[in-house]
């Protein structure tokens, strides 16, 4: 009986389908393992275990192919196997040989794919490949000595090898060695029988292995994906129903349902967890093929690459795994092709010849974080800028203002590619926009960090689809929302007259929370929902939230309770709304949206700017771009014209009952926080009120406070300050146009000593021991003028510089004298980051701590600061924070 190619037709269709599917699944899996193992083997050719493993797999594949009747596949596996026999016999493992086997594996894979598509093995010619394999097998075959003749072998043509094999398999399992040396295109080798016999012995040993493996194999079963999916859905329904029951029972204090329901609840939770686990797979599954990819690339490109994988056991959802496989592969190829330099170039740069690509994965608060880094040439920021410009994605001015990280992010823009040459390896160079889109689809984020000459690092953050998060349920304008518990610091019920009250300065609603003034945002208004009453703020519920170093309050209409919710990513049509992080199904079946605190924080920033723009009118554009916006507190005191003071200097706005004011020695005083606080009128014309409440501007420092008596607090204005007329009058710095009105800007440093005559001395005594010197860099003269006395009062000698350049030249002249550098970040010309980088580079100044000041403290800028070597980062208006930071940085300096 002979078998023609495509014997599958002879069998019944339905049973063939099952058989074929089984075969394809198993064989594909085995081939994948062979692939990985071969690469491992190449690095570790003396490892007999790996070789055995490969051998066994290939052997099984060959047997199955023969059994089903797939001659091409059988012949290919046979030839590959023959070559591997030589390795087992001690032949040298050459790169050429391994490459050839890998090529064979690829062809086998291709055939399997075809098989799956068309249900039959495609006719074709593998002659050349097989001949090549045999040639190498013959050439490498030198060590095994010919032994005594093997037991009688069937000569060519007597019985078809396939049939005999099948018969033997049917009879005794894996006993196929006797006929494996079937005639192929090449003549029999004399030493082959010896090889065959040696195999027989090994076969026996292996059979033992098979048994053991069989036991392990029996511990796992195959389940169709749809079955699992269905199970998941049913469990979700069960969880929802359980939640509904819990809510109902919650309302009845004494109920016989409570006990059983509790048990049901526990069981459901465990069931849910268990089912969730079935969907989780180690990320290593997606990484399997990568070592091979890197190996092939290294060979093709002539580079030497070390590929490290960490955290392959980190588990994530099966679906997510499928979706990131391709993006990761693409990125690894990019790193190998475009990231790493040629060995010669690396050596010239003082790097080890072997380039490194490192892939790692770990869990982090409901996400899986994957990092891919290389120590190659890094991203070419200049080229990215040029391309961004050429593609009209940004203007020169915009690009100038951007940080390096921001520019680097342009690589994720659609159609962006800066590779000069199109290589066949990664196609058009980068294509990170596609990677980004893929990751976006699964609700993840991707970021890049690159240092020119040192390397590039990508960081991908993907939510574990079954991420469960604790959230606070709130209501705004009739709709419910969830706020992640992690971001919530506390809940405050604002009430007029209490310690927590809303202070309203024109449009700006601010919450006084103990010592701090927090900006507020009304959720209903932010979401542009009808039914949110702006007037409700005074007695509203405030969710005090923290994002990075920013604290703010979200005003809502009602606060319910905290719940554990399953976060589901937003639909792709809604993902671009920054305010929402996702959505979830509640216990009652309704869908509610999850607030993204970062989004609210960002909106807060732009709201402040919008307010400024509205207030300033025609100058809005100029101010919107201007980074040296200052907050001024405008007030009236005595005279008709308004007066102002820098808000950052004001510790607190107070309104005290006039009957609390005492008089002693002709001075007005009030008991304030356990101390006597003097009240100083801003000018002689200011009279302390006779009844009612007296507004005060409280200035505190080092545990002492004084209050400026004013008539009325008018407004808080954010704008760039330009003191036009400088005054000789003590107590007045000068006059400036604030909101179109000539406003007198007062000099606080004049009033402080009026409150405590020994203010300065007290300070000096306090820090007489070591008067540290601070270099203050800020392009705003006003700000320099304000901070200098502040720092003086805190006990530091201050040298000022109006620009980074000036600062650098001062440092060059006398770096020894400077203990701390405080620099504004947003300066024209060289910014604070660049200044810091330069300070770090110069060995004379490298040790001096640098504190950065900025009106914008975002996670990004803090990170940038950290990268350039800033020791601390303080918000411009955080006066106390600044002094504390300076203290901290000088604390460990020798006296």
């Amino acid at each position: 009986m002979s078998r023609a190619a495509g014997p599958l037709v002879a069998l019944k269709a339905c049973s063939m389908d099952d058989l074929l599917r089984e075969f394809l699944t198993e064989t594909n899996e085995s081939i994948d393992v062979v692939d990985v193992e071969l690469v491992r083997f190449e690095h570790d050719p003396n490892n007999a275990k790996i070789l055995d493993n490969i051998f066994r797999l290939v052997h099984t594949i060959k047997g199955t192919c023969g059994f089903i009747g797939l001659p091409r596949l059988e012949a290919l596996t046979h030839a590959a196997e023959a070559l591997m026999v030589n390795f087992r016999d001690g032949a040298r493992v050459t790169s050429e040989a391994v490459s050839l086997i890998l090529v064979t594996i690829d062809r086998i894979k291709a055939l399997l794919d075809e098989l799956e598509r068309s249900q039959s093995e495609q006719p074709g010619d593998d002659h050349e490949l097989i001949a090549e394999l045999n040639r190498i097998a013959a050439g490498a075959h030198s060590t095994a000595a010919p032994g005594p003749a093997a037991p009688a072998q069937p000569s060519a043509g007597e019985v078809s090898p396939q049939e005999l094999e099948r018969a033997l398999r049917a009879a005794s399992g894996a006993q196929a060695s006797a006929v494996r040396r079937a005639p192929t295109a090449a003549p029999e080798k004399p030493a082959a029988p010896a090889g065959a016999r040696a195999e027989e012995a090994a076969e026996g040993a292996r059979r033992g292995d098979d048994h053991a493996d069989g036991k392990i194999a029996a511990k796992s079963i195959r389940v169709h994906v749809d079955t699992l999916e269905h199970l998941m859905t049913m469990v979700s329904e069960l969880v929802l129903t359980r939640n509904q029951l819990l809510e109902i029972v919650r309302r009845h204090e004494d109920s016989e349902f409570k006990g059983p329901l509790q048990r049901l609840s526990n069981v459901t939770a465990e069931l849910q967890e268990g089912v969730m686990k079935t969907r989780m797979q180690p990320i290593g599954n997606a990484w399997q093929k990568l070592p091979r990819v890197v190996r092939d690339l290294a060979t093709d490109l002539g580079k030497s690459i070390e590929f490290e994988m960490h955290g392959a056991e980190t588990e994530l959802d099966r679906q997510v795994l499928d979706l990131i496989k391709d993006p990761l592969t693409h990125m690894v190829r990019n790193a190998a092709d475009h990231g790493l330099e040629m060995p010669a170039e690396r050596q010239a740069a003082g790097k080890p010849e072997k380039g490194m690509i490192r892939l790692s994965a770990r869990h982090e608060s409901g996400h899986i974080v994957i990092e891919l880094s290389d120590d190659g040439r890094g991203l070419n920021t200049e080229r990215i800028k040029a391309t961004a410009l050429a593609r009209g994605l940004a203007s020169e001015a915009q690009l100038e203002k951007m940080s390096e990280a921001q520019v680097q992010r342009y690589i994720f823009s659609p159609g962006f590619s800066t590779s000069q040459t199109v290589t066949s390896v990664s196609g058009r160079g980068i294509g990170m926009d596609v990677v980004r889109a893929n990751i976006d689809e699964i609700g993840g984020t991707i970021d890049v960090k690159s240092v020119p000459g040192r390397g590039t690092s990508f960081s991908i953050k993907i939510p574990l689809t079954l991420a469960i998060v604790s959230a606070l349920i709130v209501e705004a304008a009739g709709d419910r929302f969830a706020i992640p518990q992690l971001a919530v610091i506390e809940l405050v019920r604002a009430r007029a007259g209490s310690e927590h009250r809303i202070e309203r300065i024109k449009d700006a609603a601010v919450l006084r929370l103990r010592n701090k003034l927090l900006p507020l945002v009304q959720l209903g208004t932010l979401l542009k929902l009808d039914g949110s009453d702006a007037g409700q703020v005074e007695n509203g519920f405030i969710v005090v939230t923290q994002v990075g170093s920013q604290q703010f309050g979200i005003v809502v209409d009602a606060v319910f309770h905290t719940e554990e919710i399953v976060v589901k990513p937003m639909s792709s049509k809604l993902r671009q709304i920054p305010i929402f992080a996702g959505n979830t199904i509640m216990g009652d079946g309704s869908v509610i949206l999850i607030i993204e605190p970062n989004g609210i924080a960002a909106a807060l920033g732009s709201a402040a700017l919008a307010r400024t723009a509205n207030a300033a009118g025609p100058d809005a554009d100029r101010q919107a771009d201007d980074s040296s916006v200052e907050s001024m507190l405008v007030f009236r005191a005595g005279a008709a014209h308004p007066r102002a003071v820098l808000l950052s200097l004001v510790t607190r706005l107070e309104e005290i009952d006039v009957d609390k004011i005492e008089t002693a020695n002709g001075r007005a005083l009030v008991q304030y926080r356990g101390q006597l606080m003097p009240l100083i009128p801003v000018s002689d014309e200011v009279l302390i009120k006779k009844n009612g409440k007296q507004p005060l501007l409280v200035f505190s420092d080092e545990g002492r406070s004084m209050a400026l008596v004013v008539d009325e607090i008018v407004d808080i204005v954010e704008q760039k300050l330009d003191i036009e007329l400088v005054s000789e009058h003590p107590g007045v710095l000068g006059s400036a146009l604030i909101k179109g009105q000539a406003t007198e800007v007062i000099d606080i440093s004049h009033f402080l000593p009026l409150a405590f005559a020994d203010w300065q001395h007290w300070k000096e005594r306090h820090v007489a021991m070591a008067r540290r010197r601070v270099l203050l860099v800020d392009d705003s003269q006003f700000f320099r003028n304000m901070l200098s006395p502040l720092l003086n009062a805190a006990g530091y000698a201050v040298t000022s510089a109006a620009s980074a350049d000036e600062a650098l030249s001062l440092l060059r002249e006398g770096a020894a004298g400077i203990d701390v550098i405080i620099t504004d970040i947003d300066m024209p010309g060289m910014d604070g980051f660049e200044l810091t980088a330069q300070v770090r580079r110069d060995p004379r100044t490298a040790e001096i701590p640098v504190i950065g000041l900025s009106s914008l403290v975002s996670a990004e800028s803090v990170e940038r600061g950290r990268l350039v070597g800033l020791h601390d980062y303080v918000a411009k208006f955080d006066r106390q924070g600044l002094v504390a930071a300076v203290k901290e940085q000088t604390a460990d300096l020798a006296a």
Partner: protein
Amino acid sequence: MNETVEYVTASVGEQLFGLPIARAQDVFVVDRLTRVPLAAPEIAGVLNLRGRIVTAIDLRRRLGLAPEAEDRKRMAIGIEHKGESYGLLIDAIGEVMKLPSAEREDNPINLEPRLARVSAGVHRLDDRLLVVLDVDRVLDIGSQAEAA
């Protein structure tokens, strides 16, 4: 090539639409809809359908029609697109029609632009016109919202 195509039909405004039945997962009544603030106006909100979160698209809005006067429960046709679930809110569900594919015509020149934008062709029925919905184009929201 099939000779006939089965369509699920539905009316939105005055117009009758057809959706190939292969694309329609189900038809359901929209019970509770959660509105999504700051979303494109065509997106009516999100809802829970058997444990899956479905994005509801208001076809009336999508076609530039004014919202319905009365506030009643809407019906929706559930579809899958790029792995996500959507519900197309319609005015009323019609019958299933089997129409010969040969009779499907390209958009007539005088077809209202709003309809033409989401149409994959028309069928001239005895008494009226059936517009075949091009699901991909219907779901192409977002970029247009920005412009709006």
